[in-house]
């Protein structure tokens, strides 16, 4: 599945990094401690987090993620959006909990 399909299926709002909407999703990861995510998130994953600081895009690039999804109604800082556009990694928004979204994505990928 590519990011665009996921966004359409689950009605996720695409906020930045539209150029990366054709990235292939190879898995998922949930976490808000960036040090931990940086160490453990698998390549090509979609990452579910509440963090909106610009460092999330550096972590996303480092792990070659397919997209970052801000859950729980959180939104990214302005410079985070600019980085997402520059790197071509989409930032998507989900108003509900990470648990709910992770379940749906997992079911879709399985």
């Amino acid at each position, binding site marked *: 599945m590519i990011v665009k399909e996921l966004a359409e299926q689950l009605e996720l709002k695409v906020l930045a990094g539209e150029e990366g909407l054709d990235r292939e999703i190879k898995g998922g990861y949930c976490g808000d*401690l*960036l*040090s931990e*995510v*940086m160490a453990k998130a698998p390549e090509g994953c979609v990452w579910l987090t509440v*963090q909106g*600081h*610009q*460092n999330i895009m*550096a*972590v996303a690039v480092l792990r070659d993620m397919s997209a970052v999804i801000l859950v729980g109604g959180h939104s990214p*800082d302005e410079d985070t959006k600019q980085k997402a556009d520059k790197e071509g990694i989409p930032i998507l928004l989900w108003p509900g909990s990470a648990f709910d979204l992770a379940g749906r994505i997992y079911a879709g990928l399985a």
Partner: protein
Amino acid sequence: MLKQYHTDLHIHTCLSPCGDWEMSPRGVVEMSRDKGLDIIAVCDHNSMENAEAAMRVGEKTGVCVFPGMEICSREEAHILAIFSDPERARAMQEYVYDHLPGENRSEYFGNQIIANEYDEVLGENDRLLIGATTLAIHEIVEKTHALGGLSIASHVDRPAFGIISQLGFIPPDLPLDGVEISYRIPPEDWQEKVPGIGDFPCITSSDAHYPDDIGRARTVFLIDTPSPEEIRLALQGAKGREIV
């Protein structure tokens, strides 16, 4: 004339919910004197309401006390803001209070006691001081600098509430004056054990919550007068000021 000042820039008082009552403003300053400290900063969680009492005790006991606070950013990273005078610290506190949601529940988090310089209880702070502000870390650094304060990231070696644990690494464009390494790691191991500190100037301090903790780690500054501005110069290694 330049002189060495033994300095502990991160001490809590009984205002912090996790702080012991023996950490009254008076108790903190007297213990600091007994431990041979010349300069301390009183940095309670998200508040400076015990700092002025400590400053008054400091005037009598010969310990220079800076008013400060340990602010929790919305990313849950702790960062010290240290000032030269209570007016500036109070302006910072106002900014923090405007962005600090929640009420304390002392049965879960502990009491938040405001005391004067005579160990008399003036009241309790009912804000959720242990909580996180809604401020981004760069907003805290900017406001601290706009008020002339020192901005130092707390215990960057720790697995929680440190800027490296929360943000993965220190944003290279964040204009911190320095970073604090906890007492747990000896200075000779800092670079190896905490590679994320990069070229940031490093200090160590006690992060004391109990009297015996005070001074367990300290930084010696070679400076002219005890002021945050002189410490800023020492952190930059400017004008002959330095960390010893």
